[in-house]
């Protein structure tokens, strides 16, 4: 139940504030998801979805920062690879 998964917003079907239905793609599987709790979500955004409702829009900048930090850490440690 807490296993929310990220999906990409393909199209917003209706702008009704209470439902805001959208087509969301989860690695090839498309489902209708409500964007009612993420009024800021736009087409092309990635959202975390639980029980049919998107609960957050993934922050691309934060994601990039984390990955950059992990990359740099590898370089500091000698950049060894498995």
């Amino acid at each position, binding site marked *: *139940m*807490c*296993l*929310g998964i*990220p999906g*990409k917003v393909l199209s917003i079907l209706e702008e009704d504030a*209470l*439902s805001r239905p959208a087509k969301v793609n*989860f*690695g090839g599987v498309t*489902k209708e998801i*409500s964007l*009612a*709790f*993420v*009024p800021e979500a736009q087409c092309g955004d*990635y959202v*975390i979805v*639980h*029980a*049919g*409702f998107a*609960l*957050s829009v*993934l*922050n*691309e900048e*934060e*994601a990039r*920062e*984390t*990955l950059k930090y*992990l990359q740099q*850490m*590898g370089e500091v*440690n000698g950049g*060894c*690879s*498995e």
Partner: protein
Amino acid sequence: MKYVDEYRDAQVVHRLARDLAHACTRSWKIMEVCGGQTHAIVKFGIAELLPAGIELIHGPGCPVCVTPLAMIDKAIIIAARPGVIFCSFGDMLRVPGSAGDLLTVKANGGDVRMVYSPRDAVNIAQANPDREVVFFAVGFETTAPANAMAVYQASQQGLRNFSLLVAQVLVPPALKALLASPERRVQGILAAGHVCTVMGYHEYESLARDYCVPIVVTGFEPVDIMQGICLCIRQLEEGRTEVENQYARSVRREGNLPAQRLISEVFTVTTQQWRGLGEIPSSGLRLRETYKAYDAEERFALGAYQAAESSDCRSGLVLQGALRPSECPCFGNCCTPEKPLGAPMVSSEGACAAYYLYRRR
């Protein structure tokens, strides 16, 4: 898949493990709260990559597992009534009640339906005006927005044949109870990233301060979990006890405000019984007076029903982190996912099921 594959990079996980081995000078016990994280830890073999001395203790964050037996029985009683369509997430269907489970009711002719979202249950209620449609509203803060929306929409549409059987629990009060316990064993906490996506993490700041425990809000992929452990151990080694946010791509300090507003419109905080942990003040949600008409316990007059827990299943100890699933004498013998004694062997977030599926020891 974007936002998944890059967080399953084995090289990064190994790099973090080496970093951790350098940083760690003594033994530490860390609890991952969420059952989804427990499954990822066991599935991806993360515990095997940790330096000797770091022990992960599995927390009570499996909503199916902490739902009291009496509530499972109530679901079974309601589902067996003629004229009822009982809707539930798939996880709940095989949880054993005092006699049988929801699938037994279905096998005996009951109309029990597995749905993906409470919205589906609202649609079923609209399409079947002559039937009573009940949704089993189980879960932590992650399912509360969806369940609140289902009730809100039903009330806006004037639907009279829809109700919720509410077993909604809240993480911070349970965490507080675990940290305040005289038998407390954990020194650091990985908080559940999706619960914090909804509620934010400001509530954890006082917990970290009052109970001198570092709390790292953590995601669900192997890189997330390994980084969460690294951040937590670094705090412990440096003597800091702060809240850190590893899962910043999804979690903001204030959480999702529209979702929180709807939760408090529909629900109010109440004392809740947790299976294995007992009664915890302010750790659950119930429908507000305005929405009482949508309470299945009222509608089917089951408020006073009680049930005694079985003594065979030791899931209470597993849920408190006091017993590893594989240490239970029933594990893999008289208790398997096909024939479970208790909920942790059933749920996709249950620790016993994770051990059974991925490690067996």
